[in-house]
């Protein structure tokens, strides 16, 4: 899906927990997330801390969208 959306001309960031799969399939802007069952959160954190973590991941994704890249790039 990432590839087809990019092929259509939009800039896409793939936020995912298993980065090697995204690299293999052909994602270009990749942001690694926390864990498979909760990519944008961590149930062990208190509510506000979890929200802050989620927000920081979204901010990283927005930065990735604004970053020029020459090929597949993982935004650690």
């Amino acid at each position: 899906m990432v590839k087809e959306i990019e092929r259509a001309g939009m800039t896409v960031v793939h936020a995912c927990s298993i980065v090697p799969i995204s690299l293999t399939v052909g994602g270009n802007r990749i942001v690694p997330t926390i864990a498979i069952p909760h990519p944008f959160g961590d149930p062990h954190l208190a509510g506000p801390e979890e929200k802050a973590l989620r927000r920081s991941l979204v901010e990283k994704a927005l930065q990735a969208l604004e970053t020029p890249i020459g090929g597949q790039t993982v935004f650690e």
Partner: protein
Amino acid sequence: MSTSYKVVHCLNQFFGGLGGEEQAGAAPTLVQGPKGPGLLIENSVPGLRVMSTLIFGDNYLAENTEKAVQEILNLLAPCFEGDDAGRPDLLLAGPAFNAGRYGIGCGALCQAVQERWGIPAVTAMFPENPAVALYRKTVFIAETSDDVRGMAEAIQRMTPLGLKLVRRESCLPEEDHYIAQGRRKNVRAAKTGAQRALEMLVQRLQGEPFESEYPMPVFDRVRPAPPVADMRRARLALVTSGGIVPRGNPDKIEAANAQRFGSYPIKNLQRLSSQSHQTVHGGYDPTCANGDPNRVLPLDAVRELESEGAIGSLHDWYYATVGNATSVESAQRYGQAIAKILLADGVQAVLLTST
């Protein structure tokens, strides 16, 4: 005289009998003797013995592969570095069918064990398993059907292939039913290359079927799109393969091998909640996502950033499917359809989340 072979077998928490998704985070353990499919492996060849079974949680291995593999090598070391008589001849892993996380675990373990101890290792998967592209060049992967209904056939392919490797017999993908590794082998042919090439050319000119001796690899790569100049002015859309849908799953999206995607309104919605949304993805433990669906589709954080001006605007709908053993062909179709809708609405940037 019957030869006996000693095998170490690797299984995920499900096939190893530890439990379902609630055990997907389980740290690896080594148990004596065969478990589950290991019993079938033992029965498939007389004299073969599964000495021990290594069981790992799918998430434990897929999320932090390098570290987990190192732990497993430490667990297996006494077994592979003990006295000659007790040392295993072969490592088998899976079959993993079309399970992506399980496939990654099996591929990583086969690769690590054959590198470290120089013994053959074989796993088995469906050709579309994402782990195939990662490991096929270094690991022997017997070809299976996409789900567990193909268990008997998978065992009948994986085990004999492993034993052939133990006996150092030559193998071929077409004969031994494994996924081609892309190796070149020297063989004697009755005709010269020039003769074979001309015959092929004639067949081609006459529109007859012919088989290339060197099929070209197909690379489907998309050039990175240019960056968005300024997210503060851009229109963003949210898409997920994590199966987040309105409660009740109005489109009846399947928990695995999804046959559709859904479009769901988020206009005026500030956040997802356990009352409004849920996951229908069958490939991970839904507890965390159902407790707070923003953990998979981070609408609350996106809205916050939008209200602060960091995002120009948010497209009024989000799009969701289940990326769990879903075919590549289906995913392409959904991606194309979603892209069309987004372009029509002037979307420039997309955040796609996967579990």
